[in-house]
């Protein structure tokens, strides 16, 4: 089987000294439980988790203490049982040296687990499995910490090949190697689970040929389920695009993703974590970390997330001249701002540095355009052009040269005879571009909101102007009306009334007439077949209904009557009064007519109580009219303007 597969090759790459032998001499050790754990809420690409606990809460090992916030985010968990000390800004494993929100736990040493529920993978739909993985905090453990549930979606044309990345090409780092040697079955199981979720057809496990033990262990575990392929040792064979190219020959072009070609790639550590999450219900609370560099006994440790790096390095015996830590390897690693930053999900290795082991880079000299960097670049870029444009802050041009295809592998800087920290320039350029994109988004949103506000203001202004004009016109008309018909003897003289008032009245009258006609005309629809009893009931209801209507009518009639009586009052005020009177009359009539509804079957006691309440209510209702009641703001039958 081994001989069957034709391997391909990627361009460029370098062969740095591996420095791996020292840390694989001894098996994985479990790091002791620290007293304090700092669990950052932001440990994956995407949004930070939202805290689910408060200071003072007791938590169990494996309990979810931060929930995923949106699709591109994963949960975080308590790595051990204990008490939440605080939630607040803490040192972060990030080159910026800025503080980031973290949940600080004081461990109680009991290591009491929360209830773990293994998942029935066969009987759970893929979407639910993805949610479970999100809530188990599973991210890519190769260092990119991209939420795995997002990667476990079959591409548009399905996913044919699942690649498990055990290449581990970066010098010094051996955690994947040790994982495959010691926990091969779990890795394979995780790969099978992913194959199931992705509905992939084959699993390829790529391992650099400098790890014969891991290759043997994985082959033994894989049997016929997966193909374990030894790939030539050359940095960066473990880059996703590079490994895909070596194993399948597929070259993922600029702007496309490997899923478009039916290939998806995961790290071996991620596979193991998925196995633990689904088969044991155990969330991601620890990971393997290689401690190497300026230490006496380099080794791999299983470390709880949130353990201070200083405590982990202490296990390996750091030499006294250790002056800094690097998270990751010497090629791609990130300088840490201090010793007390926590181990996070991205921490595959901690390298202790000293002035002699990793001396500061020699001073940068001008680029001589030798082209070595371009020959070394595994992403087929032109690092020197990228460098010129980044250095000149010409980010648009840098992007034209595919700045974002750079995987920051460091091959170019490794070979550069001028010692130019090329990757630093690319990182600088990338973060500037991101910042500009954020600014641009904000500016676009602000522009939209500004334009909408202007539009809204114009609309409001014009509406206000229209209203004002209408009101002025009405006032003018009323004034004219008052001037035109000062005669107190105007006996509801319709022709003498101004047009607007007349129209209003006519509308009211028409509406009332319509309502009455409707009531009168409404024939008993489907009440013929009913029993005499029900019919009687209906009749009673009908009667009740008409009662308020007629009282209102009477009131309405009264109102017209008052307006008809000779008064000196201007028509508008007159009408208002009439309306108020009508409303009051209606309300009273309703109250009076309201019959006892479902109180007949109640005990005498309750009935008495109800009567008392009714009495109180009526009193209250009768009281307010004494002082002049506020006129209803919106007359019920205001004609449209």
């Amino acid at each position: 089987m081994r001989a069957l597969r034709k391997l391909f090759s990627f361009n460029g790459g370098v062969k740095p000294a591996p420095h791996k032998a020292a840390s694989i001499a001894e098996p994985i050790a479990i790091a002791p439980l620290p007293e304090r754990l700092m669990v950052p809420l932001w440990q994956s690409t995407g949004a930070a988790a939202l805290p689910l606990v408060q200071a003072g809460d007791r938590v169990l090992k494996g309990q979810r203490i931060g929930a995923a916030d949106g699709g591109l985010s994963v949960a975080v968990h308590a790595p051990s049982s204990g008490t939440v000390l605080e939630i607040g800004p803490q040192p972060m494993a990030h080159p910026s040296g800025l503080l980031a929100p973290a949940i600080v736990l004081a461990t109680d040493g009991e290591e009491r687990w929360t209830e773990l529920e293994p998942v029935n993978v066969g009987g759970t739909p893929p979407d639910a499995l993805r949610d479970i993985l999100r809530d188990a905090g599973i991210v890519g453990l190769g260092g990119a910490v991209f939420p795995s549930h997002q990667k476990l979606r079959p591409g548009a044309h399905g996913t044919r090949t699942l690649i498990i990345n055990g290449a581990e090409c970066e010098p010094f780092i051996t955690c994947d190697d040790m994982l495959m040697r010691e926990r091969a079955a779990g890795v394979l199981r995780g790969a099978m689970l992913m194959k199931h979720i992705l509905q992939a057809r084959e699993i390829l496990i790529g391992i650099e040929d400098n790890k014969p033990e891991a290759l043997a262990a994985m082959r033994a575990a894989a049997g016929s389920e997966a193909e374990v392929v030894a790939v030539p040792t050359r940095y960066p064979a473990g880059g996703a695009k590079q490994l895909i190219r070596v194993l399948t020959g597929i070259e993922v072009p600029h702007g496309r993703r490997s899923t478009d070609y039916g290939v998806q790639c995961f790290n071996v550590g991620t596979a193991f974590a998925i196995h633990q999450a689904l088969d044991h219900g155990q969330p991601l609370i620890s990971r393997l970390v290689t401690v190497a560099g300026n230490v006496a006994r380099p080794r791999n440790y299983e470390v709880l997330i949130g353990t201070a790096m200083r405590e982990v390095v202490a296990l390996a015996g750091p030499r006294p001249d250790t002056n800094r830590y690097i998270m990751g390897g010497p090629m791609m690693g990130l300088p840490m701002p201090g010793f007390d930053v926590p181990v996070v999900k991205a921490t595959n290795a901690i390298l202790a540095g000293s002035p002699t082991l990793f001396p500061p880079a020699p001073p940068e000299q001008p680029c001589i355009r030798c082209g070595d960097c371009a020959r070394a670049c595994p992403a087929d870029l032109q690092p020197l052009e990228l460098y010129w444009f980044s250095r000149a802050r010409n980010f648009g041009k840098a992007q034209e040269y595919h700045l974002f295809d750079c995987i920051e592998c460091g091959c170019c800087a490794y070979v550069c005879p001028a010692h130019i920290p090329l990757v630093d320039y690319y990182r600088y350029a990338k973060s500037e571009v991101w910042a500009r994109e954020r600014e641009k988004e904000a500016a676009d949103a602000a522009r939209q909101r500004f334009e909408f506000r202007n539009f809204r203001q114009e609309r409001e202004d014009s509406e206000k102007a229209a209203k004002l004009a209408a009101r002025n016109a009405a006032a003018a008309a009323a004034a004219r009306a008052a001037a035109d018909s000062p005669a107190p003897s105007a006996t509801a003289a319709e022709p003498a009334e101004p047009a607007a008032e007349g129209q209003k009245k006519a509308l009211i009258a028409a509406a009332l007439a319509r309502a009455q006609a409707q009531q009168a005309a409404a024939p008993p629809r489907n009440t013929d077949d009913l029993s005499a009893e029900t019919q009687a009931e209906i009749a009673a209801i009908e009667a009740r209904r008409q009662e308020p209507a007629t009282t209102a009518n009477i009131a309405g009639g009264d109102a017209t009557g008052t307006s008809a009586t000779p008064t000196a009052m201007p028509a508008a005020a007159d009408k208002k009064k009439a309306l108020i009177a009508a409303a009051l009359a209606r309300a009273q009539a309703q109250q009076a007519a309201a019959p006892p509804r479902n109180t007949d079957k109640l005990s005498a006691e309750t009935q008495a109580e109800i009567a008392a309440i009714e009495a109180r209510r009526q009193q209250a209702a009768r009281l307010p009219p004494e002082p002049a009641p506020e006129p209803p703001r919106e007359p019920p039958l205001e004609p449209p303007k």
Partner: protein
Amino acid sequence: MLSALLVMTGIALAIGAALGYAAVRFRVEGDPLVEKIDAILPQTQCGQCGYPGCKPYAQAIAGGEAEINQCPPGGEEGIRKLADLLGREVKPLSEEHGVEKPKAVAVIDEQTCIGCTLCIQACPVDAIVGAAKQMHTVVEKLCTGCELCVAPCPVDCISMVTQAETVQTWKWRYPVVPLRVEGKRAA
């Protein structure tokens, strides 16, 4: 000789006709310069440029009424981009219009706010929520930091808070070349 001349003339005419036709047929709608300028302006809508918002300023630049160095929020980079776009000279930010400041957002002291709605009316991007006699709050994400709400507040409860860098918004610094003093070789 003559035939060569004729051929050349013929080709010239044919190509000329083709080009002329293409110019009519595939005419590109006149570039909306105002839009391009507006796309460069930061949309803070603060009015420091002397116009009631970025769009009016863009119109003024396009119309040749305004200089390109009147927008403090856009800063040096904005001026440079405008100069590139318009083919004008880069010049320093005009001092009478203000100085470039780091981005800040308005924060309302919720204890002091009396709910007068004056700031709501001042905010050009509707970034303040609240109602009459209710406490008001700035939606941080929407605030452009224009400071227009600060002055109208009758109880002075709005302050501008510079936005701190977070791990997510942190930017890698421009690589600095470590200067090594090597006494002997320096000479």
